[in-house]
């Protein structure tokens, strides 16, 4: 058992994956000597060399496009996108190529590519550094999308993602990079594409992923003081969604709230609301409520506290749900 920050857990997970499989190649901007702007790849170029930790030219389409070629040649590229808002130059390669080549080739060309994206806000940054683009990827068939919330999931999740034969958008909650927890690196991890109930409860099912998991847990604790018993689920996988435990939970609680930072319209909450309602229709005592970012661009940092879902907004949604 070691105490690790989420960032360090990723670093160790990457190192382990590189040791286990010589075909793993890291690519990205500033990931070499600098170790990435968040130091997630710290020390890896020094130990594995410039052929396995590639400081690329400043071009995200280039990173993803060459990753496709490397994958065709049997490599397992792990691409770092420096910040969420800079994934869009690579969007064409991700959506029209990475996501489609397995289907196009009828399985002859697997695309075991991991796209690491530090995502979400709350770090006081300038424009494009605090976004939550997950819905764009979860709507794209051919991709899988996961979001980690804890050091342990970060450590194991990055290894599982790299070992997976499919392209995976791997979302890292950047504002939680410095948060610590115990990690048992010898444990047998949960499967990657599985949600997890973090806290049992009877009155309402609260769903979150990535940076909002902590907020959801805090909300559940606060609600407890008011005598409300909230079940908290960390979704972990955004595509495919793993909602069986959620359905089971909602059938018991009759109420459901989903939290994410991304703009609410067509955010993950929309899909989850639609599915939960379709599956648990007769059990629902209130509509599934969503707590998300507003349908606006991410604001200047002085306004991000107003923009982001927080404890109070989650509790407000809980109240509204209970009021139905």
């Amino acid at each position, binding site marked *: 058992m070691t105490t690790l920050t989420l960032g360090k857990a990723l670093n160790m997970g990457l190192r382990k994956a590189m040791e286990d499989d010589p075909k793993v*190649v890291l690519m990205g901007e500033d990931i070499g000597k600098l170790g990435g702007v968040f130091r997630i790849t710290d020390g890896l170029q020094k130990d594995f060399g410039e*052929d396995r930790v590639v400081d*690329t*030219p400043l*071009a995200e*389409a*280039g990173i*993803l*496009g*060459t*990753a*496709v*070629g*490397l*994958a*065709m*040649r*049997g*490599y397992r*590229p792990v691409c770092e996108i420096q910040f969420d808002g800079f994934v869009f*130059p690579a969007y*064409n*390669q991700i959506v*029209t*190529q990475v996501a489609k*080549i*397995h*289907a*196009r*080739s*009828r*399985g*002859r*060309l*697997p695309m*075991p590519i991991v796209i690491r994206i530090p995502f979400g806000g709350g770090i006081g940054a300038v424009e494009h550094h605090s976004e939550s683009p997950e819905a764009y990827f979860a709507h794209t*068939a*051919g991709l*899988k999308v996961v979001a980690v919330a804890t050091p342990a999931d970060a450590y194991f999740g990055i290894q599982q993602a790299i070992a*997976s*034969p*499919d392209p995976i958008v791997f979302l890292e909650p950047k504002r939680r990079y410095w948060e610590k927890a115990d990690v048992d690196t010898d444990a047998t991890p949960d499967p990657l*594409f599985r949600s997890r109930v973090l806290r049992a409860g009877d009155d309402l099912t609260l769903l979150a992923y990535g940076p909002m998991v902590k907020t959801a847990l805090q909300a559940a604790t606060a609600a407890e003081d008011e005598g409300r018993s909230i079940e908290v689920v960390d979704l972990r996988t955004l595509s*495919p*969604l*793993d909602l069986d435990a959620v359905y089971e939970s909602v059938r018991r609680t009759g109420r459901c709230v989903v939290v994410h930072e991304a703009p609410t319209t067509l955010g993950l909450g929309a899909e989850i609301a639609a599915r939960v309602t379709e599956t648990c229709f007769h059990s629902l005592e209130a509509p599934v409520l969503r707590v998300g970012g507003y349908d606006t661009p991410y604001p200047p940092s002085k306004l991000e506290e107003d923009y982001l879902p927080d404890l109070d907004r989650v509790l407000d949604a809980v109240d509204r749900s209970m009021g139905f």
Partner: protein
Amino acid sequence: MTALEHATEVVDPVPGTGAPHLPEQPDSGPEFVQLLTPEGERVEHPDYAIDVTDEELRSLYRDLALVRRWDVEATALQRQGELGIWASLLGQEAAQVGAGRALAPDDMAFPTYREHGVAWTRGVDPLHVMSLFRGNDMGGWDPVATGVNLYTVVIGAQTLHATGYAMGLQRDGADAAALAFLGDGATSQGEVNEALIWAASLSAPVVFFCQNNQYAISVPIERQSRVPLYQRASGFGFPGVRVDGNDVLAVLAVTRAALARAREGSGPTFIEAFTYRMGAHTTSDDPTRYRMASELEEWKLRDPIARLKAHLARAGIADAAFFDAVDAEGDELAVRIRTGTLEMTDPAGTEIFDHVYAEQTPDLERQRAEFVAYHASFEGEK
């Protein structure tokens, strides 16, 4: 006078004049590699020598003639409603066969959607190309076994794939190179320019083979570049060369040299094969809307097959019997393609679900099951 006034000479310095499009047609000079004139005469180029046996020359002719025959048959099949669309290679046979024949077995080709001639030289079954244009699949051949990637429709995207593949070759220490095909229009895509940057930066063993067929659908080359395309490369730090794309020998020689250079570790090359799309962009296109018939007539005089035929005949390398035999082989091929296309069975509906992921997801498993159940529910009705 300042340095800025030493502007590069441009193709058409007056923007937006809407002058009739007259592609410049270089046919000599050291900047234009030609080994066989339009009249079929062998000429020498100071930088490119080529040793070809008579046998090889005949076999090149055979490739050119057969891919043209295939193309004619495919166009006819499309007209008859048997293909959704067809992208003709008419006029570009030499560029494609020359480039394809330059490849060594371990090299990998990254075609656009028009490189049937390249596919042919690599042994891809034409029916595996036909199935794509029929709408059965997205290319039926095995890219790994044939050394020909599947066709890529999004303009230019494959140039980055080729560059990444070349990075893989580099890491493997393989004695092989990647050959990325692209059109003149594709040179304007950001991703293509990124591929040039990456290839240069990483000294990747990749050759960019640009068929400048003068048009991107209706848009003439002048809209994409005011200077010859092969000049693009030097600004990125590697050599560019312009070759007569209707001269199969010159294309073979230039591409071979570039691939050898790449395999040796000397980095990328950009080849501009100067050619002409003699047909429509695809069977959906109507070129009379944007180009003059006279232009086509001029280019017919540079026909890539006629010139090799003239050379073979004049030099006594092939006789009428040989040409007749190739024609007969072409007709057989056409029959095989026609019959094979007509006999293709439609794909099963479940194909929609079966290759999206290497590890199937529960969501798709469920959608597949629903699909099967839904279709089964109609069984009785038929």
